[in-house]
């Protein structure tokens, strides 16, 4: 069956070489990581307090960033999918901007919004809230970069979801809120789960916006990607160990999403 997919055997031969080069290019870094990994010292490295601190901070901040994205991202996705208003296309484009924006630029933007001299930073500081260079800043930076993944996934599901079930719920006396909670959300549950996983993965790997907006302070803002980068200079073995942890998480996510990976979600 697979051999009959293409009717141009000549073309297959010609494209096989660059295709192989492409595949090797993508796989070699993984092989490199695995080949040089300090397997025997791994338990000790991961037990190192500094490494554990980075691990813990990363998972905590990525989880909080994902929760924040869920709380505001799902309503935003719903509005984009279901409410007709002027400029909807523009808003949708702006929401997805962080997907293509260099994260460093996002970090600079966050500084000028929530930084000491930022639009909201000044008023916030006067009531005693400081965001830049804190763990809260890490969460914000990660949410900024990761939330669009959730929004795009959920909005696609909402746009494609069958509104006839919501109509049926209304005829049974359910208010808009009850319908949203008991019908709409469960029906798009798989997409919310997929969007959440994508969002978490992106938040966990965040580097550029985090280091720009939140800095690099061990224990408060130094997440795993930052530690990996810094450890390469001082303690390459620790860098490898941390990289392996991130790789393992990525593989887990890939397995969790394999359904969607094979059949990409609508956008």
């Amino acid at each position, binding site marked *: 069956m697979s051999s009959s997919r293409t009717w141009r055997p000549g073309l297959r031969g010609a494209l096989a070489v660059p295709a192989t080069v492409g595949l090797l290019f993508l796989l070699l870094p993984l092989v490199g990581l695995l080949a040089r990994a300090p397997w025997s010292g791994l338990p000790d490295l991961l037990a190192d307090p500094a490494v554990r601190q980075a691990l813990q901070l990363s998972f905590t901040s990525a989880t909080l960033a994902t929760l924040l994205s869920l709380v505001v991202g799902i309503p935003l996705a719903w509005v984009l999918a279901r409410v007709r208003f002027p400029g909807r296309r523009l808003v949708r484009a702006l929401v997805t901007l962080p997907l293509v924006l260099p994260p460093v630029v996002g970090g600079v933007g966050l500084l000028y919004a929530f930084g000491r001299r930022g639009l909201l930073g000044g008023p916030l500081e006067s009531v005693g809230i400081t965001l830049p260079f804190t763990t809260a800043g890490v969460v914000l930076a990660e949410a900024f970069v990761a939330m669009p993944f959730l929004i795009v996934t959920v909005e696609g599901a909402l746009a494609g979801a069958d509104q*006839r*079930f919501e*109509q*049926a*719920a*209304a*005829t*049974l*006396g*359910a*208010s*808009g809120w*009850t319908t949203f909670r*008991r*019908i709409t959300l*469960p*029906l798009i*549950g798989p997409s919310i789960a997929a969007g959440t996983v994508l969002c978490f993965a992106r938040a966990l790997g965040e580097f550029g916006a985090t280091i720009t907006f939140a800095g690099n302070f061990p224990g408060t803002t130094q997440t795993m990607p930052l530690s990996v980068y810094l450890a390469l200079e001082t303690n390459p073995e620790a860098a490898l160990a941390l990289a392996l942890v991130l790789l393992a998480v990525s593989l887990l996510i890939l397995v969790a999403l394999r359904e969607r990976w094979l059949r990409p979600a609508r956008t």
Partner: protein
Amino acid sequence: MTLHARVQVDRAGFSLGVDLTAAGGETVAVLGPNGAGKSTLLGALAGLIPLSAGRVELGPALLDDVATGRRVPVEQRRIGVVFQEYRLFPHLSARENVAFGPRSTGTAKHAARADADAWLSRLGLDGLADVRPAQLSGGQAQRVALARALCRQPDLLLLDEPLSSLDVATRSDVRSVLRDLLAEFAGPALLVTHDPIDALALADRLVVLEEGAVVQSGTPTEVARRPASPYVAKLVGLNLFRGTATRGVVHVAGGGELTTDSALDGPVLAVVRPSSILLDRSEPIGSSARNRWAGRLGSLEATGDRVRISVASTPPLLVDVTPQAVADLRLSAGDEVWASLKATDIDVYPDPAGRV
């Protein structure tokens, strides 16, 4: 609890205008070909489709009044809807589907579930309460949909093609369940269908819609006796000819003549029961039948204890004969036959549409 509805829905290329009254306990069948506006009518009454003009009253409640801008939201109308494709919530069990209405309107979880179980049991669905819709058969899903609509105790029941997606055996089964439920239901019920058997079996009154307008309404007997359009005649299985009568002879609009005993002149409808027409292999010379037509047999279809035969004559005819007659005459499609009909077997009445 009486429904008074004047419904006008205008959309690009389609307009629905219907006046409808249904008394408490009455079942009205809304019949019509595809695209006639039947489902739109139900959607408008349920509040899912906004009216362009009109007014809907259900008992003491004014649900819609375009003139004053009043429109009661869907969830506040006490209207039970059974959708054509059931629309059972796929992520909820049969019990939770049925309990959804009461729970959404403030009944405690426990009481709502007890209600749901009672309804499921009434509809013969014991043991299926924990099953998800995907695991239900068509007939079971239809019963769950009925239970769900009735469990919230609606004032008006709207049924959109409730039996159309069921196979023949299940259909007659669910039909009798539906008949019992409707007999018991205190409010008015509207049943959209394009199946005359459902309409005749379940409804007290028929309303026929064509192209967004009511072409006829009345009791099933009234409508069957005096169908107002070829669609209605076909629906109730009659030959209906539209034409002009002159001294007892009806000149059929599409060609051909009927000799009748009617004294009417002008635009008329002539109705012939398919069982009144006789078929012969050769011309029935010496017969008392004053109408004779030569024609070729089209289709033969067994419908119950009869065979319905279409004869390509001028005008074309539908003829009902017994299977015995088909065997005796060795009738098969393509045969040349003679059809004959007594003048007294043709009912002629003025064309309500007045068109020729």
